């Protein structure tokens, strides 16, 4: 069936295939050398990935079915770690906070697109702004989190500025109130992430064919209509990639939460990754932590399905 279809569509090449199957060609000496060289270059990275990525993933998929503390022999417990997670209120809280963290995604993407549009102009000094927006990306998250912790302090500069401007009467407890702590940490994630996504969108904007935008403008489209109907649809593959990465990052958020609040106050910022860390390296409950990791992976998958559905059609396919 497939052979017939192939011969019907691809003409003479298929007929040659039917008449005489291709001989197995031996690789030339040069090709072998090229092949060996390529894999030799890949080998160190592959070995590192095998040791530090693939092996832990496989081991994680094994130990999630075990009671494993490192210090004692592993004991097979079947799905007990999963049923424990479904009954664990702290885990439920951490799932809820991780899902709430996804609020970061649309805000971050919209802000990043706006910043990318702003810096995608040939203005004097624009390189400075592009670099300035990117600096938080290359700064260590721990350093960023500690700096923001100082800014958020009850006698920190943020409260001082807001009080001086008369916007608030008393200092706000950014990291020590149950209501504000999670949004305050989200702010830091957004501040640090804008530069990264800005670069992705900047690359996207610079790859948009100018003639399409010009054609729309000649046809009388306003600047907004050009952005709405030409630029943004062409950016969709970039939005898809950035949103996918951002959802993944939000569900796995760890560093800023761990450093700024440690999951408090009253567990109001406990996220899945932080909870998993506490279970693994605080309580040495590696089996349970591995099960949490698997549930986290499943959630990432589930939350990214609508992202792919919504954004799969885009780029030049839009037309």
């Amino acid at each position, binding site marked *: 069936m497939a052979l017939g279809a192939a011969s019907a569509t691809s003409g003479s090449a298929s007929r040659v295939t039917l008449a005489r199957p291709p001989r197995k060609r031996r690789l030339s000496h040069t090709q072998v050398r090229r092949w060996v060289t390529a894999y030799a270059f890949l080998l160190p990275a592959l070995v590192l990935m095998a040791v530090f990525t693939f092996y832990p993933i496989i081991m994680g998929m094994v130990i999630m079915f075990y009671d494993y*503390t*490192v*210090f*004692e022999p592993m004991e097979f417990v079947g799905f007990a770690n999963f049923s424990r997670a479904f009954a664990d209120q702290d885990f439920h809280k951490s799932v809820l906070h991780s899902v709430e963290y996804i609020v970061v995604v649309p805000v971050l993407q919209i802000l990043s697109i706006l910043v990318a549009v702003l810096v995608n102009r040939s203005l004097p000094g624009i390189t400075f702004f592009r670099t300035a927006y990117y600096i938080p990306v290359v700064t260590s998250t721990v350093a960023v989190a500690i700096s923001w912790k100082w800014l958020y302090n009850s*006698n920190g500069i943020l409260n001082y500025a807001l009080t001086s401007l008369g916007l608030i009467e008393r200092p706000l407890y950014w990291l*020590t*109130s149950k209501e504000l702590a999670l949004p305050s940490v989200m702010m830091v994630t957004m501040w640090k992430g804008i530069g990264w996504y800005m670069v992705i969108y900047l690359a996207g904007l610079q790859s948009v064919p100018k003639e399409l935008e010009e054609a729309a403008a000649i046809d009388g489209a306003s600047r907004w209509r050009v952005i709405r109907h030409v630029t943004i649809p062409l950016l969709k593959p970039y939005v898809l990639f950035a949103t996918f990465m951002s959802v993944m990052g939000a569900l796995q958020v760890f560093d800023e939460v761990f450093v700024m609040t*440690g999951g408090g106050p009253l567990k109001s910022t406990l996220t899945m990754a932080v909870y998993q860390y506490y279970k693994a390296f605080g309580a*040495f409950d590696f089996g349970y932590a591995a099960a949490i990791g698997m549930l986290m992976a499943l959630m990432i998958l589930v939350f990214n399905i609508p992202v792919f559905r919504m954004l799969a059609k885009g780029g030049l396919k839009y037309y």
Partner: protein
Amino acid sequence: MRGRLKLAAVLAAMCLVFALMAGGGEAARETRLEFWTISLQPMFNDYINGIIKDYEKANPGVKIVWKDLPIGVITTKLTAAIAGGIAPDVVNLNTGMAVSLAERRSLVNIGKEFPQYKDVYFEGLWNSARFEDGIYAFPWYVVTHVMMYNKAIFEKAGLDPASPPITWEEITECAKQIKAKTGLYGFMPHVNFVADLIELGVPLTSEDKTRATFNTPDAVAKLQWYQDLMKNDIIPRETLQAGYAGALDRYQAGQLGMIVTGPQFISRIKTNAPDVYKNTMIAPYPLSKGKVVGAPLMNLVVPKASKNWSEAAKFAAHVTGDEAQLAFCKLVTILPSTKKAAEDPFFTQTDGTIESIARKIAASQLKHAVESDLTLRHSLDLLDALTVQVEAAFYGEKTPKEALDQAVAEWNKILQRKD
């Protein structure tokens, strides 16, 4: 010519092989011990290398390899090393970490295997890393808390720096006066409610450790005290989360009147905030009903997975011995855990510097010293259950009585667990 070259190459290769074999034989006879410490490099390189050299000289054939790690990663690295079959032989841990590993039967029971060392150390400190019937660590260096206060802030608030507060009630009154007169916070406690309970003399559990018993009127009053301080803005809102480091930051910035901390931090204040250092005065730690002083202790443990645990324990005893500890105490304001070293006149005399005053006060409190980490089975779960309730009371979500009753109920469930 080519033949000779080949012969020379073969001979050279054979020599190399024999040399390596000989070296391998040497290495096989050598006992290699890996020693992990917490944040002692680079400040104490000479000291640690010195005690290692002394030990190697006195014990030919033993080679010590020293690694220094930050406190935040040491248990993670130790867990990974044990899992990977490359466990270190002697590890520096605080008592909480040591007991949590002892609970998992991963440390050598020092009390059982090496009872001869028991009388070398202060009884309270030797018993710190007790878990069930075993003692799982050699006590190393220790500090007892002292109170440091800023003379300039006291004067600005109309308080007499020559008469510092000596009870918690007086500290509260001073803190209120400082806040009212200067706008600065007078005090920022490091909240460790287990330590508070121990200092109050409140029993955490029944004798058989099957029931929690800490929801007593004294405990409720202590939690009420914290709640009132927070509600009335006498202590900063960050108190619960900031810990020692947050309080020290404020004190160094000249924004805090009093701080309860270990005397070893004086050197940090001297470096980071010389003006504050000049205004710093020292007072004893106020004793509560239990008549004990919290004494954070550093220990040396020997993992069961060590291939040379007997030699490792001998080395740990050397590092925590009288001579080595006394020399260490002369480098930084810490105290020894051994009785004989603590008798040295160095700990009873002052030269007028605040370091020596702090050392004298801290050393005089050693007889009241107890480590305040939990040493019960499921200690992490118990601590978590208590912390959540203390936080709830702190932020006014529950009354202190409700919070402690709930914590006791949670503890009872955990203490009944058989896993």
